[in-house]
């Protein structure tokens, strides 16, 4: 954000808008980062980097968005940073079920164990998907983004995104079915 290009009032308005964006989407960026990298420590780093980068380019993004929501733009930043994260450190995501707090409703012990197993199997299946399918599922189910938002975040058309999500769910079903078959006595 070049200070030389705007007045103090414009700058104050922009900072306020950024503050609102940050408050509205901190959880989205953190959730996305967490499911991408699989641990809280790196998810915190990734979230911080995402917002710092977003702050630097916020004025332009706001200008070019023409009033459209900026969440896809934020998630795209996190997506690019996560890609660099894997490239630089040659890491693989870790299974994130143990401390993600996914089971909150009261259950009997047996049902709880069964439920936890099911969710664990789903997450392991998500991990086996190709990157673009996994990311589309994270955006849809962890962040509640619609097709258009996901399309903007991934730089695809709405139609291609719909197909991507459909294939991701079908492939996940296959993976889970196979893993269930291999564990049954």
């Amino acid at each position: 954000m070049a200070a030389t290009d705007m007045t103090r009032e414009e700058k104050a308005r922009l900072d306020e808008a950024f503050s609102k964006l940050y408050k509205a989407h901190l959880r989205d960026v953190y959730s996305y980062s967490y499911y991408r990298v699989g641990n809280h420590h790196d998810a915190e780093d990734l979230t911080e980097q995402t917002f710092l980068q977003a702050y630097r380019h916020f004025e332009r993004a706001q200008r070019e968005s023409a009033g459209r929501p900026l969440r896809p733009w934020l998630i795209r930043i996190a997506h690019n940073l996560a890609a660099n994260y894997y490239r630089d450190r040659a890491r693989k995501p870790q299974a994130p079920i143990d401390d993600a707090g996914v089971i909150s409703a009261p259950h009997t012990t047996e049902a709880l164990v069964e439920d936890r197993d099911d969710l664990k199997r789903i997450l392991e299946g998500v991990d086996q998907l190709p990157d673009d399918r996994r990311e589309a599922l994270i955006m849809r189910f962890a962040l509640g983004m619609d097709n258009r938002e996901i399309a903007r975040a991934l730089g695809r058309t709405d139609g291609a995104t719909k197909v991507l999500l459909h294939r991701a769910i079908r492939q996940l079903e296959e993976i889970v079915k196979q893993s269930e078959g291999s564990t049954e006595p």
Partner: protein
Amino acid sequence: MSEQFADIETLLKRALSPVEPPKELEARLEVTLGSLVDMAAEELEAWELRAMRDPRNWVRPVAAAAVGSTAAVGLVLVRTQRRRHKRRREAHGAADLLGRTMRDLAREARRVADDVF
């Protein structure tokens, strides 16, 4: 789990539930972003003061004014030129044509000035 397959989207929703960011992260980020905002505000203030004194920063407004003036002059000429056939038809001799051309030029200049300013 086979009967739950039909409901894989529900399972996905539960497995990929949103994760709350740690409170320390929120606090840290707010401090970092707050100092960035302050730094940018100081930078802006310093730039405004420097800009008043440094003639190099006058180039942009002067250039913008020059570009604007050139465009305005061009517009006056184009609009005056458009009426040349009518002037020739109506003029009685060279002196009259020159007089009509000058009047058109003045009128177009006034119109452009009204539009621009």
